[in-house]
C-alpha cells in the first residue's frame, strides 16, 4: 500500500514539526550559496530560529529570473567537487535554468519518484517503459532512477520512434509506461496504423502521464484508447523534476510530498496566501536538497489544494490538476484566457482530435484568436453542412467559455505539428 508508511501517513502536526526541523537545515544550507548568503532576512531567521512553518512567509520569494541572472553558480550551496549531476532548461532565450545535485539529492529524488510510482500501483514485478527524452530533460533520468529504485524492470526507451516503442512493449511485455499526454495520442494512431489494438495487443495496466498540463477529458480519452488507468504526475526541474506530486490509485488529486517540499499557494498579484481551496500560484521550498536549496520559489503553476482527507490514508495534501501557468495566460480583446479553458471545451467534443493550436494574430488592425482544430477521420462523412455546423458549434462553445469569439479553423488530421517535447499550444503573431 505504501512505499514509506510512516512518513506518508504521518499525522499533520507531526509532519509540520518535521518540516520545521528540515526547513531550518535547508536555510542553513542555502546561505552557503552566493545568492542566499547575501540575504539578511534569511540570516536573521537562522539566528532567531523558527517554530512554525508560517514564519516562512517573512522571507522573500525566489523567481526564475533570479535563477537566470545568477547563472551559472549563484545558487550552488556546496563545493563544486561534491556536485554529481546537473539538469538544465534549453536556454534558447537567455541563460538556461540549471539545477545541481549531489549524491544525497539524487538519492532522495529517486526515493520520491519510487514513492510516487508505488502510490500509483506500480510494483517491483512491473516492466516499466519510460517513453520520454533523456538528457537534460528531467523526465528521462528522473523516472529511470525512480523505477530502478522501486525495483521494476526498466526500459529506457527515450522519446519518439513509435514503431520501436510498440515493438519494445510487445517484446518485453511492458506493463507500465510513462509519456507526455500529447505523445500518447500519436502512439495510439501508430498502433491503429499497424492494425494493433493496445487494449488487446499489449500487457499494459497503467500509464503515467505528466510534464504537460492537461484536462480531465484528455486523461479520460487516453484511458479509453489504451484501456488502462492513467495517473497524473507533476514536477518541475527546479524542484528536481518528476516526483514532486503524484496521484494515488484514488485518482483524486496529486499528493505533494510535504516531507520534501514546503508548499504555499499565493495570489500572484497580491502575493498573499489564497483562501482555503482557492486557485493560486504554487510556491515551493525544498526541504531535503543540499546542492541547491530553493526558498519560496515561485513555480508559476496555478493550482489549489483539494479539501479533505484522501481515502488512501496518506496525510500529504493533494493538489488539483494544474490549471495552467500564471505566465501562459494571454489577454485578447480585454479578456484573460488560459489555453486550458479552450482545451476543456475541445476535448468534450468527440468529433475533434487531441491536438489544437491557438494563434493570436492581427487581422485588419484587430486582434483575433484563431483556433486550429483537427477533425477526426472517423467523423468525416464528406458532408459540407456537417462541418459547417461543427465549426459554428465550436465557435459558440468557446465564446461562452472565454467570452471572446474565436475563429475556428478546421484542419486536416495530422496537420498540427506534434512535438515530442511539450506541445506548443499558443502562437502569438500579434503586431505589438
Amino acid at each position, binding site marked *: 500500500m505504501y512505499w514509506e508508511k510512516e512518513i506518508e501517513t504521518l499525522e499533520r502536526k507531526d509532519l509540520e514539526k518535521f518540516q520545521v526541523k528540515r526547513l531550518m537545515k535547508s536555510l542553513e544550507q542555502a546561505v552557503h550559496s552566493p545568492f542566499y548568503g547575501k540575504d539578511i532576512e534569511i540570516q536573521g531567521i537562522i539566528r532567531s530560529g523558527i517554530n512554525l512553518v508560517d514564519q516562512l512567509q517573512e522571507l522573500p520569494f525566489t523567481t526564475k529570473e533570479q535563477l537566470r541572472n545568477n547563472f551559472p553558480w549563484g545558487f550552488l550551496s556546496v563545493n563544486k567537487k561534491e556536485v554529481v549531476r546537473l539538469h538544465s532548461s534549453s536556454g534558447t532565450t537567455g541563460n538556461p535554468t540549471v539545477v545541481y545535485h549531489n549524491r544525497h539529492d539524487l538519492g532522495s529524488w529517486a526515493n520520491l519518484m519510487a514513492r510516487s510510482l508505488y502510490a500509483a500501483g506500480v510494483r517491483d514485478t512491473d516492466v516499466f517503459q519510460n517513453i520520454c527524452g533523456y538528457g537534460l530533460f528531467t523526465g528521462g533520468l528522473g523516472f529511470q532512477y525512480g523505477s530502478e529504485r522501486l525495483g521494476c524492470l526498466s526500459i529506457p526507451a527515450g522519446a519518439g520512434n513509435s514503431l520501436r516503442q510498440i515493438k519494445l512493449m510487445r517484446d518485453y511485455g511492458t506493463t507500465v509506461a510513462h509519456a507526455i499526454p500529447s505523445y500518447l495520442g500519436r502512439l495510439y494512431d501508430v498502433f491503429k496504423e499497424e492494425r494493433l489494438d493496445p487494449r488487446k495487443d499489449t500487457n499494459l495496466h497503467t500509464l503515467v502521464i505528466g510534464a504537460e498540463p492537461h484536462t480531465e477529458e484528455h486523461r479520460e480519452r487516453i484511458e479509453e484508447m489504451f484501456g488502462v488507468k492513467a495517473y497524473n504526475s507533476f514536477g518541475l526541474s527546479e524542484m528536481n523534476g518528476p516526483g514532486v506530486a503524484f496521484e494515488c490509485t484514488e485518482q483524486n488529486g496529486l499528493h505533494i510530498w510535504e516531507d520534501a517540499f514546503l508548499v504555499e499557494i499565493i495570489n500572484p498579484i497580491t502575493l498573499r496566501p489564497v483562501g482555503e481551496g482557492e486557485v493560486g500560484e504554487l510556491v515551493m521550498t525544498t526541504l531535503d536538497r543540499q546542492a541547491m536549496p530553493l526558498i519560496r520559489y515561485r513555480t508559476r503553476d496555478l493550482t489549489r489544494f483539494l479539501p479533505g482527507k484522501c481515502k488512501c490514508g496518506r496525510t500529504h495534501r493533494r493538489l488539483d490538476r494544474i490549471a495552467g501557468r500564471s505566465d501562459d495566460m494571454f489577454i485578447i480583446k480585454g479578456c484573460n484566457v488560459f489555453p486550458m479553458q479552450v482545451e476543456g471545451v475541445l476535448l468534450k467534443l468527440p468529433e475533434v482530435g487531441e491536438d489544437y493550436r491557438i494563434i493570436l494574430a492581427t487581422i485588419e488592425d484587430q486582434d483575433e484568436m484563431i483556433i486550429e482544430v483537427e477533425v477526426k477521420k472517423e467523423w*468525416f462523412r*464528406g*458532408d459540407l453542412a456537417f462541418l459547417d455546423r461543427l465549426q459554428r458549434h465550436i465557435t459558440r462553445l468557446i465564446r461562452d467559455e472565454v467570452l471572446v469569439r474565436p475563429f475556428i*479553423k478546421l484542419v486536416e488530421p495530422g496537420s498540427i505539428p506534434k512535438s515530442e517535447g511539450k506541445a506548443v499550444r499558443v502562437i502569438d503573431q500579434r503586431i505589438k
Partner: protein
Amino acid sequence: MTYQVSIFLENKLGHLERVTSILKAAAINIRSLHLNHTANGWGILNLVVSDPVMAHQLLNENGMSAALREIVVIKMTDQPGSLDALLKAIVKAGVNFTNAYGRVVNEGESAFFVIDVQDFKDAVVNLESVGLQIVENRSVYGN
C-alpha cells in the same frame, strides 16, 4: 449503389496534388472531379474514380479524411439544351439535390450528370419514373 470519394482538404499549396499522387501510385483513374470551397480555408473534393473502395482505403491509410458518399449518375446527351431538358425532368420527378457535376463521355454524343441527394432510394425510383436513365456502376467507374 454508386459512390464518389469525398475528401476534406485545406486550401493549401500541394494538398490536392497529395491526393492525385496517391491515386496515381495505385493506378486509379479519375473519371470526374469537383471541388467545393468555403470561405474558411477548407473545402471538399469529390471524385468519381475507377475503384472508389480502394481509393477510399488508400487515402485514409495515408492520413486523410476521406469518405464514400452515394451518388446518382444520370445519362444525358452532349447537345445544347440537353441539360435544361434533364433538369426539367428532375424537377418533374420532385428530386432536390445538394451538389452536382458532370462529365462528357463521348463528345457531341453522351455525357453523365452526377447528383448528391438526401434520400437515394426514393430519388432513383422517382427519376426512373420520369424516364431518366440511371447509369450503371460499370460505366460510371469505366471498368
